[in-house]
Each structure stands twice: as structure tokens, then as C-alpha cells.
């Protein structure tokens, strides 16, 4: 528990983080920025799990364990995405979305 801060404030923050991530995923034009938006979404759920565990169900640590697994999987996902982006950069010397698209409709 954090003194003076209720669960509502923290859940508001995580909801904002989530929707900033979704908005960024849709509007960003750079592959790295899109990846960062995905990380924002994942981090929003990590904070959600920890906070819900701490405030609502403090006797069993299910949410905390879940958040550790999310962090590990997110790291694997980022590593893979970055390696694919590097491979793409070697071929077209750009990480902009508009340069990568050759398949449409």
C-alpha cells in the first residue's frame, strides 16, 4: 500500500498508459516507436497486476508472479523484433513504415 494514494489513481494511470500505447501503435511511422508503444501496453498490464495484487488480494502473490513472467516474455519479444528490424535495415537502410511496405491489399 502507498499512503494517500488509492487504487483508483493508479488504475487511471495504467489505463492512460494502455491507451497511449494503442494510440502510438496506430499513429507512429517508425518501427522502433511502434515497438516502444507495444512495450507501453505490456507495462500498463504489469503495473495493473502488481497493484491489483497489492491492494485487493494481498494474501496470495499470483499477480506479482504473473508480472515477472510478463517482463521476461516482453524482453524476448523485443529482442526478436529488434533483430528482425536490423535485418530489414540492412536491406533497405530505413526503419520507416512507408519504406518497408511492398505488400498491399
Amino acid at each position, binding site marked *: 500500500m502507498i499512503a494517500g494514494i488509492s487504487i483508483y489513481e493508479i488504475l487511471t494511470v495504467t489505463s492512460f498508459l494502455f491507451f497511449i500505447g494503442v494510440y502510438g501503435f496506430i499513429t507512429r511511422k517508425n518501427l522502433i516507436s511502434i515497438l516502444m508503444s*507495444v512495450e507501453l501496453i505490456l507495462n500498463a498490464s504489469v503495473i495493473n497486476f502488481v497493484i491489483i495484487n497489492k491492494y485487493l488480494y494481498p494474501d496470495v502473490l*499470483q499477480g506479482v508472479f504473473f508480472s515477472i513472467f510478463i517482463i521476461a516474455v516482453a524482453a524476448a519479444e523485443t529482442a526478436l523484433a529488434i533483430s528482425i528490424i536490423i535485418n530489414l535495415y540492412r536491406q533497405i537502410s530505413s526503419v520507416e513504415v512507408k519504406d518497408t511496405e511492398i505488400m498491399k491489399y
Partner: protein
Amino acid sequence: MDFSSFLLMRQEIILLAIIILLLIAEIFIPKNKKSSIVHFAIFLFGIHTIVGFLSINECSIFGGSFQTNNLIHFFKNVLNIGVLILLLQSADWIQEKIVAQDKGTEFFILLFSSLLGMYFMISSGDFLMFYIGLELSTLPVAALAAYETSKRISSESGIKLILSAGLASGISLFGISLLYATSGSIFFHDIIGTISASNLTILGFILFFAGLSFKISLVPFHFWTADVYEGAPISVASYLSVISKGAAAFILMILLFTIFKSLMHIWENMIYVISIATMFIGNLFALRQQNMKRFLAFSSIAQAGFILLGLISGTQLGTTTVVYFIMIYIFSNLAAFGVVQAISSKTGKENMTDYEGLYRTNPKLSLVMLLALFSLAGIPPVAGFFGKFFLFTAAASEGFYLLVFLAVVNVTISLYYYLLVVRAMFLRKGENPIPFFKNKIYMRLGLIITVIGIIVLGLYSPLYEYIYELSSIYN
């Protein structure tokens, strides 16, 4: 819990052992004999498939986070057979293109890791195991889609897959966290008791559903499908379209029929709308495709819409028909992808116009393609008809007559574009048709198994009754 209870995870352990054996083999096989790894991998996986048919006890271990029963075990066997056919079909391609770049072992390891993820996903008993299984089944496939590192189009499909998969799993996780907030547990058997139709639960459920429908490529989340299928190597595209989609549809069905059963009045409406949209958009976009891989991608989107018809009924009949349809769909789609694979690896041609006059030069291949397309379209003598017919029965028995009518309209639309390919192969002469070629033994074996599956599965009714018996637990 004693040591022997680990044996209940027999299939997972054997598959893990195969992965480790392949790693060791990669070290000890000398450089000039690397192509033997293909035979080794197919041999090991063949044994795994056969051993999988031994029966298993119904159980749940690790405090309920891993559970298995006869239906799940049966479905794992179906997935095994699908992957075995896929390995047979892509063996030549791997030997010629991938082993030459010294990347053969990694291909099998990634493919099997993804299958291992699917095992854990479909027999998960809590959301943590489910999430890890989902990610383990998605990430290796993204690496496989970008596997032809010298081709730009392959990298593009890989980055599209991994970014959309990341978004989908993130949304799904946020949904799971909201479900955890309302029910206080991530275990399915705890959630069943506490779930109620409060607003937060419904929001969590919708977000969770969105993440899973990405994997099945239902309509608002289908944009990655065609691009990824076109850019990825054909065996990876066919893996995505049959195995990955089948496993995701299966676990979605189990979750809807068990933990979200009390929200049925809500997800019924959702699935109703999504099913109609998926069928129409998949079919209408398939009409204008020229590339065979894109064509099959949109056709597989439309087939996912038909699967939802079985889900919406929410009964034992629905469970049976969904499993039965997925099984038939695996065989039919693998046959179609197998022919595309054979032609593409020999000649590099992937467009529909290249298939003109195929019957004159390669009659056997075009007959396999004909059977596969008839089965996908649902024309009576082959298995696809029975699969679709039973799905429609399941939906109609719960009174969704309008939905069944729209589905029948969609079958008619789909018949048109499937027959476009048939017309190109059989009726058109073509200026420079694909010359005659002979397939190697693995490819021939893979195609023969699919053809037997397409013909026999529809006519052999004890199989349907067997699945019906197994699915009595999800009533």
C-alpha cells in the same frame, strides 16, 4: 505429488526431448552431411506422433495450472499429424534452400518450440500458463516468417507478424488483469465460481477475446494475415493457417464453454456479428486475389468465420463439430498449400495465371488441388462438405437460422473463387504452362496422406461419434 505425475505431460516431455536431441545432433553432425538432419527430424517426429496415440489419464497437475483430458489429448494428436504432413511437404524445400545456408536445425527447433507452446496453451489451467503458451507459440513463428533473411519480403512479413502479435498479446494481457481484478484468481477453476456479468468483467473479457481473435484472424484483427502469408516461406504460411489457427480456435472454444459459460448471453451477440463480418470480408477479398498465397490467406479467414458457427451454439454438438471441422480443415488446407509449395519450389511461380493448363502437364498435382479446393468449398463427396454441414446443424439447432442462411450465401460466394482456380487448371490452355515435373518421395507421401484424409474423414462416421463421446465434458 510424486515424480510419476510428470509422466502425465508425456507429449510435452517427448517433444522437448526431440528439441534437445536436435540441438545435440547439430553439434555432432559434420558440415558436409547436414542434410541428414531433415531425415532425422522427420523420423523423430514420426515416432512422437505414433507414441502420442497411446491413451493418457485425465488429470490436472501443478496445482491445476496444467490439465489434460481425452479431448485435449486427441486434439494434440490431430496437431501432431498436421505438423508431420507439413514436415513431409516442406522437406525438399528445407533441403534445397535452408540446409544450404546451414540453418536447417534451427528451422526444426523453432517449429517444434512453437508446437510445444501450443500444447501448453491448449492444456493450460490458469491464465499464466495460457499466456506463456500463447507467446511461446507465436514468437518462434515470427522468427520463422523472417527466416529467408536475404529476401526483403520475408523480413517485412516477420516484422508485421511480431508487432501485431505484440499488440494483440498486450491487449489480451490487459483484459486478463481486469478479469483478475474482479475474480481474485488466475486459476480457471476459481474464476468459474466467481465470474459475474459486471461491467469490469465484460470489458476484461472483450479485451481478452480481442487478443485471441488475432491468432484466429477474425475480422477486425485480420489485417496481418494476407501480408504475412505472402511474405513468409510457404511452409510457415501453411503452419500459421492450419496448426496455429486450429489450436487457437480450440482453446477459445474451451475457455468460452467453461469459464465464460455464464457470460454466454454476451459473447453470443459478439460472435454473431464477428462471424458474419469474417465470412463476408474473407470471401469478398479472396475474389480479387491473384497470388495463390494471398488467395489461400483470405480463404482461411473465411473458414475461421465458419468455425464460429460451431462456437456460437455452446453445446456438446458445437464442441464436436468444431473439433471435427478443424481436423478436416487441417487436411484440406495442407493439401492446397502442399501443391502450391511443390509448384513454387520447382518453378518459383505463385500466381493464379501460372496455373493455367496445369492439368495437361501435371494431372496428379491438379487432381490433389481439385480435391483440396472442393473440400474447402464444401462439395458433397469430400470431407469438407460434412464438416460444414455439421457446423450448420450445430448453429441451426440453437435457432440461429439467419446466421446459417448468411453462411450458406457465403459458401456460394466461396464456390465461385475456388472454381476460378479449378477453371484455370482444367479449362484454360495457357501460353506457357508449368512443365511436367516429378516430386520427391517426401512430398508425394505428404500429398497422399492429405488426399486420404480428405476422402476418408468425411465417410468414416465412427470418428465423429468418437469425438462426440469425448466432448461430453464440455456440455
